[in-house]
């Protein structure tokens, strides 16, 4: 009996230590260049940048390049790669992953947790736009650094508020201030002028003398025009095979 208890206890201990081991186990590096499109030097530079941003913002910013996504779509591959490698910080596994598939020549950005809302669909399109030039010129390191830079901007903006643009505020203040000053001095100028000719004779209208003998309102025709509403920046999300929610978007190159 005692042995049995001891065995159970040992098993339990093993489980706990394993669990601790797994949870404290370092996740794979935030950069994985499976397609080998980066030089050793670029890899080091990008990795240190990704690590710095990830630590500062409490959200993992990950990049993975592959030559094939096997039989998965880029979205499934990116979501699964993020989930099963244990990326993501906090209880909601916040993070963002960029997948570059050199075989299918497709890119995918997958967002998780806080990053789903921080990086909207439009933001993802914007990031791809910014990367496009470097991707077309096969400067993958440059494209990835651009991606990292924008992720930092959007996540930081969502968490800490976007940085105050003092030049913009000053510009608005100067223009609005001038309008106020022109109106105020215009009123003062107006006080000096009291001689104006009158083009109407409303003072001499006999009260109650208006007598309408005919009053007709006839409908003629109508026109209908339509214009497209501006699209709102939203974050569409889906559930991956692990059961977690992800946002994301992709583009071919």
């Amino acid at each position: 009996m005692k042995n049995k208890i001891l065995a159970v206890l040992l098993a339990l201990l093993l489980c706990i230590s394993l669990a601790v081991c797994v949870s404290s186990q370092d996740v794979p590096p935030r950069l994985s260049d499976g397609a080998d499109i980066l030089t050793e030097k670029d890899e080091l530079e990008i990795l240190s940048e990704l690590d710095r941003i990830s630590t500062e913002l409490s959200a993992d910013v990950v990049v993975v390049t592959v030559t094939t996504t096997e039989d998965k779509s880029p979205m499934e591959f990116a979501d699964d790669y993020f989930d099963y490698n244990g990326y993501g910080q906090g209880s909601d596994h916040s993070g963002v992953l960029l997948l570059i598939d050199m075989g299918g020549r497709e890119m995918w950005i997958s967002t998780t947790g806080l990053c789903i809302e921080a990086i909207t669909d439009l933001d993802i399109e914007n990031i791809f736009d910014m990367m496009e030039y470097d991707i077309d010129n096969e400067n993958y390191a440059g494209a990835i650094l651009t991606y990292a830079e924008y992720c930092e901007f959007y996540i930081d903006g969502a968490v800490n508020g976007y940085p105050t643009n003092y030049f913009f505020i000053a510009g608005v203040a100067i223009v609005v201030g001038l309008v106020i000053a022109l109106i105020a001095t215009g009123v003062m100028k107006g006080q000096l002028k009291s001689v104006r000719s009158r083009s109407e004779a409303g003072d001499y209208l006999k009260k109650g003398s208006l007598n309408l003998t005919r009053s007709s309102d006839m409908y003629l025709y109508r026109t209908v025009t339509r214009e497209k509403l501006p699209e709102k920046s939203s974050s569409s999300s889906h559930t991956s095979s692990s059961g977690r929610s992800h946002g994301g978007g992709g583009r071919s190159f």
Partner: protein
Amino acid sequence: MLKEYKCPCCGGAIEFDSSIQAMKCPYCDTEFEMETLLAYDEELSGDRTSEFNWNVSPGKEWQEGENGSLYSYICNSCGGEIVGDETLGATHCPFCSNPVIMTGQFAGALKPDIVIPFKLDKKAAKEALKKHYMGKRLLPKSFKDENHIEEVKGVYVPFWLFDTDANARIRYKATRVRVWSDSTYRYTETSFFNVTREGSLGFEGVPVDGSTKMDDALMESVEPFNLSEAVDFQTAYLSGYLAHKYDVDENESIKRANERIQRSTEEAFAATVEGYTTVLPEASSVDLSEGRARYALYPLWILNTQWGGEKYIFAMNGQTGKFVGDLPMDKKAFKKWLFGIWGIASAAIFAIGCLISLIG
């Protein structure tokens, strides 16, 4: 049978084919009901031009002995002719401040029908001038301080008063706009209407300045006078005051009265067109009938001054006390206020903007 109709939308010609029930303009593709086109055509054919018919003969002939105590004075500088009784004595021209000389007994011209006697005196006019200077930040300080009103004169100014009934027919194109949206589009529906208003409107005592020596804009600025206080003209009312003889006759003055009556009629009619987003007059005719004109003297206090080589003239309605007269502007003060307010307002907005963005 074919008849051409005017498209209410683009004005193009629509050939009316009685075999088709709904019509479509070949130029702008707008569709119409048959009845609409027929009724619209009828409205269009009712458009006329304005007619101003006056049959006026204001004023009366002087009775013998009535104008015996009146004297004419002519200003040698501006040519203005003024009228006063023997109490006036030597004086200065109320229009240009130069001395005037008596030329003899008053003769000719018509006798006014009515007069509004002075209700306010010279003191009131001087008080009003002081008030006129108050609260005006751009008024040069030296104008206030160095200002010497050279002469304050009570003047009866000749006015032609026009009474008439206006018969008008005004046609408008009006629109009603409805806006709604679904998830992808915003729709704007504009419905067009033909609105017609016909009717009449009465005017009484529309004044037109009958003196070229008096600036028309200055005279229109002291309006309105209250005609119900007017009395039949008696020479005695002129005692102690100047009177100006009309030098614009009633027929020349009618043009100005027509303009003002037409404008007011159009405004009064437009106010009856309600419930639309936009209202645009397309055709307007204002006919005047039952026209009558009277020759009246209205009381005005005229104040003259000079400053910086410029003449400034002020006028006060001798009945209501309304005081008018343009004042000079201190350009330095203007710049000071403009840049001062600009700076302070900009700084305040910048501070508020920064505060909001920090909190947000």
